[in-house]
């Protein structure tokens, strides 16, 4: 749920070296398991549907854990606790939306996407947009918009992987990037989404275990949450105010973007296609919410814990906020716990990268040809080829300057939100939405996000405190969607096929 923001923080954290025997051993075991799962999955992948949506054959538990895994990224472990250490409780407004987003996604998207997959054999999110609006143009524009976001996400994930692998194995940043992307590419290209899903299950489990262990360690070390709060309140009461050191507008803005925006994150909503039995959706939100709560315990625990330990003199002051988790792990917790968390961070970045490689490949070899009225003959072979190209491009981009790559990642979340949420989440539930409204909304989201983010990056424009490009683009995209749909409402009814209408009315 916090991908691009957190990856940028992770990139700039430049983790200290953790290359100790226990950390290297746990890291080596982690990579061995990933490779083993990938070999198994490659043997089971025979068709394009296997490659891109696992042949709609994933069970409830596996899909839930995999979805948790791709939803959090390395931010939950490094950038988030660091942000919390810096700004206090206001940083929680990035993760608090998890209390509603999973059920919101289930009500708004899960059933309809899964049933559309059943009726039409859809394999991508732009596929659903094309089917809903009977529009290859909308499908193609959505695909192009998503590619912009994926380029950013992939480059930041590649660099974040390099940072973590370098920290574990001390191989240098450049080699870390190539090793991480090489392994991710190997399982993405050979086993497609099936390898991705089962690696996500392993990686998500590792992340949850590491998070819970660190959370309870922090509580124990600090004498309980009450004692930790007392220590912080004595030194810095504003830290535990409801907005922390953010303005109310900034904190609430986080909540808006990360709640509504969750409905447009393709790495999460794409998973709805894959559930073996649509009726298993019944328990999906409950299980995913519980999983997310477990993975996010570390975010809160380390954020408040390190603040209290530094204030009490039990830890040295941090060189930078992003050192909160690494400093705690390397100086306070048992080394095995540190090893688990470092592997967990590698897991988070690899699972996100795999998911985006797969989604990007599907857009290039499926959605864009459909937009131009063509179909590729051997989608599986093309899928594997494009996967290699995307991974190589991401690794090469990741070798550029850190600030440039961080910038590329920053707009990923907002771009997906502003281009997909109105068209997909509202469009699949409101028969008044029109093709023109969808195309106008996607275009608005793409143009406004890119223009505002580039202007902010080049410092030619400064937002007022608490306002972000993502929030402005999302609101504008919504309003354009409703306005253009209203103006063109006479065409609304004619743009829905009978099977799509049936799914929308259920």
């Amino acid at each position, binding site marked *: 749920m916090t991908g691009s923001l957190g990856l940028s923080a992770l990139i700039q954290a430049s983790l200290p070296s953790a290359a100790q025997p226990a950390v290297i051993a746990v890291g080596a075991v982690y990579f061995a398991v990933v490779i083993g799962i990938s070999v198994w999955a490659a043997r089971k992948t025979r068709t394009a549907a296997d490659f891109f949506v696992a042949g709609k054959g994933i069970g409830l538990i596996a899909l839930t854990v995999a979805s948790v895994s791709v939803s959090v990224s390395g931010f939950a472990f490094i950038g988030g606790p660091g942000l919390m250490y810096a700004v206090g409780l206001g940083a929680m407004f990035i993760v608090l939306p998890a209390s509603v987003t999973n059920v919101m996604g289930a009500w708004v998207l899960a059933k309809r996407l899964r049933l559309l997959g059943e009726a039409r054999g859809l394999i991508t999110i732009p596929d659903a947009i094309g089917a809903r609006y009977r529009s290859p143009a909308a499908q193609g524009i959505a695909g192009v918009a998503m590619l912009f976001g994926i380029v950013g996400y992939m480059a930041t994930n590649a660099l974040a992987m390099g940072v973590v692998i370098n920290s574990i194995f001390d191989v240098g940043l450049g080699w870390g990037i190539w090793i991480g992307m090489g392994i991710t590419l190997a399982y993405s290209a050979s086993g497609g989404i099936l390898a991705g899903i089962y690696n996500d299950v392993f990686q998500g489990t590792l992340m949850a275990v590491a998070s819970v262990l660190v959370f309870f360690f922090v509580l124990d070390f600090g004498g309980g949450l009450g004692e930790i*709060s007392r220590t912080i309140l004595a030194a810095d009461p504003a830290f535990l105010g*409801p907005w922390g050191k953010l303005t109310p507008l900034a904190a609430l803005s986080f909540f808006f973007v990360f709640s509504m925006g969750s409905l447009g994150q393709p790495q999460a909503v794409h998973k709805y296609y894959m559930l073996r039995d649509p009726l298993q959706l019944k328990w999906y939100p*409950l299980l995913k919410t519980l999983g997310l709560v477990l993975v996010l315990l570390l975010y809160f625990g380390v954020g408040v814990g390190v603040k209290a330990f530094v204030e009490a003199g039990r830890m040295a002051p941090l060189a930078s906020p992003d050192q909160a988790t690494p400093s705690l792990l390397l100086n306070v917790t048992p080394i095995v716990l540190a090893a688990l968390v470092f592997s967990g961070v590698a897991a988070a970045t690899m699972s996100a990268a795999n998911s985006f490689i797969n989604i990007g490949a599907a857009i290039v070899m499926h959605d864009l040809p459909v937009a131009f009225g063509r179909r590729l003959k051997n989608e599986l072979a093309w899928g594997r080829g494009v996967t290699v190209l995307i991974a190589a491009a991401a690794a090469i981009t990741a070798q550029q300057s850190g600030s440039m790559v961080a910038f590329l990642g920053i707009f990923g979340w907002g771009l997906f939100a502003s281009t997909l949420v109105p068209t997909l989440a*509202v469009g699949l539930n409101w028969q008044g939405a029109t093709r023109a409204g969808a195309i106008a909304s996607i275009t608005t989201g793409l143009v406004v996000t890119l223009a505002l983010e580039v202007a902010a990056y080049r410092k030619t424009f400064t937002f007022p405190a608490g306002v972000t490009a993502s929030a402005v683009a999302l609101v504008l995209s919504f309003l354009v969607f409703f306005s253009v749909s209203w103006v063109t409402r006479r065409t609304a009814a004619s743009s829905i096929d009978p099977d799509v209408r049936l799914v929308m009315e259920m």
Partner: protein
Amino acid sequence: MLVISLSGIAVAYASAFATSGIPGWAPWLLAVGIPFAIGAIMILGATRGRQGIGPLKVPFAFVVVTLALGFCAALILPAAESANSTLWLGLPVRAAIVIYGIGLFPTIVLPIAYALTFESQTLTAEDVERVRSLARGIEQSESEGIVDQPGPTS
């Protein structure tokens, strides 16, 4: 409700660009607009034809009110955190409202409401079969060239 709440959020953001600084009412618009926008989009997704949202109106109202009250309480309660503050489950009052009220209550209520109403409000085996049956019919018609091919046209 979705359009109105999003318009309120848009006004709050627009007001932040005022040269005189962010007006005091802007956070209030977000504090009320966000819960209503979330509630509205959930209602849109959960509405099942003429059946509406049925018993889901209770959990939806609960969540909208909980979020709105939580945000507004955080805005209106005085900033009185100190070393002597009363703690609720280990946190000062305003922090506890945010973490437990906004972060935990909906976590418990919404997924359980979704599961308990799944068959009546969301999906049944008959629904799945209706979709499969219609898809089979369209596929058969296409293969026999009886009807226009459904799917993207422009």
